[in-house]
């Protein structure tokens, strides 16, 4: 498995569970690398089932939302499934205001998310 600087990647059965090393995901030089590493999971490693666990994230900006939308499109193009979990209430509010909670499948916690694949 490729080394990741921005992500912690683990397999739970068939599901690729991703956690984030950066507590703040914002528009700076790191977000390009963050996005590229996420895309690599699909474009290079052909992961079909991807779960993003946001438990270590306390802030994200609209730049991160853009990357997540692109990731979702890539996963769907590969006939895969993407889910998100452990999003704290303040960040969930960002998804809700932008109506992206309707685009993404967001679960309360990792166990719920894994059971739903």
């Amino acid at each position, binding site marked *: 498995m490729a080394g990741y600087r921005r992500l912690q990647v683990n397999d739970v059965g068939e599901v690729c569970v991703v956690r984030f090393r950066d507590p703040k995901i914002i528009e700076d030089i790191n977000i390009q690398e963050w996005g590229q590493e996420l895309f690599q999971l699909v474009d290079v490693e052909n992961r079909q089932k991807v779960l993003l666990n946001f438990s270590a994230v306390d802030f994200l900006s609209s730049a991160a939302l853009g990357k997540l939308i692109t990731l979702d499109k890539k996963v769907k193009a590969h006939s895969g499934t993407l889910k998100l979990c452990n999003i704290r209430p*303040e960040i969930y509010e960002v998804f809700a205001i932008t109506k992206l909670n309707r685009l993404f499948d967001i679960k309360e916690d990792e166990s719920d998310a894994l059971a739903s694949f």
Partner: protein
Amino acid sequence: MAEDRWIWSSDHLIPSRAGAGRRLLQELLDQLKRQHWVQHDIFSVQLAVEEALVNAIKHGNRLDHAKQVHVTCRVAADLLRVEIADQGGGFDLRAVPNPTDPQRLESPRGRGIMLMRSFMSRVQYNDLGNCVVLEKVRGGHDQPRQGGSTP
């Protein structure tokens, strides 16, 4: 508004480079924590100011290293005001699409401005569109950790 109502203020000129506003934003957030602003307000300010800085640097000044962004922050007992001015040609606010339109959900345009408006009490652009004033009315008071009395 009387100038003596402000407890704290800062004034910065930053380059048009990704991440250039990080230090001044952290300075502002630290000040809000010292004033015991509630966490949701602090998150709101962080989000809105981050979005406005990115807009000024990336869209206003187009990452032109010859251009700068002027950021003024002021904190009063129950109010915060941040003014962010870029050196770009501005934009037509009326032309920004609604990012929650189901047909446009995947487009990034307008999302930052929408978040600014949702999380701040007031967002006001000048006519040209190259200067924005963000205001946040304080929502509550966090409990001070040591030595403070219960409100």
